[in-house]
């Protein structure tokens, strides 16, 4: 057992980090520019990143959810549009379809990026919303543990009014959609992990900005970072970010290697990441004081992304309810406590007693 990234995984993370750093300003600028273009997608698809975790049989590289989550975390760090994330999430769901013809039909285009898939969900009222779906070939909408595929995505999608200025929410009617019949129930949990990974990237960057600002901003003759009201706030951010990162890495590894532990691990990751992203972004804004409340300063974009991405798939409350059910408050079905209690090194699966 060894809980850290291997060299190849580190290289993936660093490569995407470097690529994104150059594109971050453009993403952040999107908020002021109504004729936005995606500075990330052409480069990511040209370099083959879209193929990363698609099975080799369908033109992919066959890497795991872990590798994919590293890419998505770095794109979250850079506030990238949803193009890569959506395509990757859709790829995970399509790969889990019960129908071989679905994979055959859609995975090669997802892997090459030539027929990009957008990701979204069917809302309570039956409407479909997808992220940055304009220009996508297909859209995969999560729906009640399964997903629907809209193919082709019609042109001229209506834009809904979302809180996230670095992504657009498009309306897509799920009427003509085909159900995927996601066979492996854990595919949706894998998407939860990608969402959580993105949120960790958002939190990491917001924390770095707060720490940097606290070192430079002087008030009362000192950098504000010397005051515990600020420095302990930053320390609390670190606890949240590192905990969420640990949970996401563990969940992604579990998805790849120990699927029976996935429901517990994915819920832990989503809860930890949702908490971290919102609280760190809000706390980072507070550190910036009045400046953080200005449109020109990018910190609010992190707060907005944290809010929007937390509204995808299961809420923190729903995941907490699942965790409770998996760890002893499962209604009538619970085993006695002592018999089921694992040592932690029995793995995440055992931690949830399933």
């Amino acid at each position: 057992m060894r809980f850290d990234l291997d060299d190849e995984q580190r290289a993936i993370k660093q490569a995407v980090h470097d690529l994104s750093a150059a594109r971050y300003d453009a993403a952040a600028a999107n908020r002021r520019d109504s004729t936005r273009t995606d500075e990330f997608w052409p480069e990511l698809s040209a370099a083959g990143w879209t193929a990363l975790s698609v099975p080799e049989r369908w033109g992919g590289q066959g890497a795991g959810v872990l590798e994919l989550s590293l890419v998505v975390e770095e794109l979250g760090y850079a506030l990238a549009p949803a193009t890569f994330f959506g395509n990757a999430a859709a790829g995970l769901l399509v790969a889990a379809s019960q129908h071989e013809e679905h994979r055959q039909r859609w995975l090669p285009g997802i892997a090459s990026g030539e027929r990009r898939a957008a990701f979204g969900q069917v809302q309570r009222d039956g409407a479909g919303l997808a992220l940055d779906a304009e220009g996508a070939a297909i859209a995969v909408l999560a729906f009640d543990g399964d997903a629907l595929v809209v193919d082709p995505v019609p042109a001229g999608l209506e834009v809904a009014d979302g809180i996230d200025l670095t992504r657009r929410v498009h309306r897509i009617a799920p009427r003509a959609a085909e159900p995927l019949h996601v066979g492996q129930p854990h595919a949706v949990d894998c998407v939860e992990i990608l969402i959580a990974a993105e949120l960790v990237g958002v939190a990491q960057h917001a924390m770095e900005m707060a720490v940097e600002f606290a070192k430079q901003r002087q008030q009362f003759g000192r950098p504000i970072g010397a005051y515990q009201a600020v420095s302990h706030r930053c320390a609390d951010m670190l606890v949240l970010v590192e905990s969420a990162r640990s949970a996401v890495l563990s969940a992604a590894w579990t998805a790849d290697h120990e699927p029976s532990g996935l429901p517990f691990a994915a819920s832990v990751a989503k809860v930890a990441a949702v908490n971290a992203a919102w609280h760190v972004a809000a706390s980072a804004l507070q550190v910036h004081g009045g400046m953080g409340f200005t449109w020109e300063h990018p910190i609010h974009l992190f707060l907005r992304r944290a809010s929007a991405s937390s509204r995808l798939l299961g809420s923190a409350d729903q995941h907490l309810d699942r965790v409770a059910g998996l760890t002893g408050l499962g209604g009538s079905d619970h085993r006695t406590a002592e018999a089921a209690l694992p040592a932690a090194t029995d793995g995440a699966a055992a931690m949830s007693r399933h």
Partner: protein
Amino acid sequence: MDLSLSPLELEFRDEIRAWLHDHHPGPSPDGIEEQFDFRLAWQRTLHDAGYAGIAWPQAYGGRGATLMQQTIFNEEMVRARAPAPANILGLIMGGPVVMAHGTEEQKRRFLAPILSGEEVWCQGFSEPDAGSDLAAVRTRAERVDGAWKITGQKVWTSFAHRAKWCMLLARTSEDARYRNLTYFICDMQQPGVTVRPLRQITGETEFNEVFFDTAAVADDNVIGGVGNGWQVALATLMFERPGLGASSALQIRMTLTELAELIRAHGLDADAGIRRRYAQLVVETETIRLNGYRGLARAIDGVPGPEGSIVKIQWAAINQSLTELAFDVLGHDGLADQPAWTYRLLRARANSIEGGTSEIQRNILAERVLQLPRLR
């Protein structure tokens, strides 16, 4: 101790309630300038009816009523969802500071046009490098030909481009911190003053940056004496607080009522977790209301004290928790098409920054109420 309204107060409340029912100006128009004009007209209506400056002395055009009546008035305004009068900063800060620290001549000059809305006031305290640390202002006032010339930059000045007067804190000497500032009333309608709108994360331009380039201020417009600016400004900030608790609490309760509707609409009214988070906010809101009244009783006896910081801290925290709860209730629905809740969620983040950050409020409580040592 008496928490019921006296017959006189009840009568006053009913009078205001009825008057607001008959004179409510209707929904606000779109557009920030249009809204300001609308609120200016509304202030004139209030003024004509004798409802501007409820607790101000009659000698200065006020109604000469009690602080309690002012509070009742504020609550009824909130309850009726009436717009705030345009010259709100003149009413809650400019006027009180002139009354407390101004000369008789200044009172006669400045107070009446505040009430009528004829002269709008804005505030020029904060600067890019003087936020929490107000004593660090760099804007300078220099003595030239028996008057003052102001040069520097202010931020977070609301409606500066519509204002006649600015409550301005500027450096007038190289004396020690807290002894080197002077409180001016600066004419905004002169060539040396440039206003640039400052856009907030909500997309609005509630606030401005103001640049002063040798803008002129007459000697008569110094408040409280040269070198006393810090003390006067601190008192000004205190004026914002007492009695604010009650109407703020009512405002929050109204938003909580909308939140309860949202909870029911999402079928979560039987969810014990959501219910208790909601009820906890109701409890805290009620304590804001009550803390506000207790602060008011103290304020009636003398100068408002630092206890108002309690209400300010709570108000910010509740607005933030409330909007966070709303998005947890919205769930998927929070992804798009929620302009009202989105605006509130974002706007609430400023509540712990504007008017003194929650950190500064805690410093005030620790140092001034609990007498804990100051960090040097």
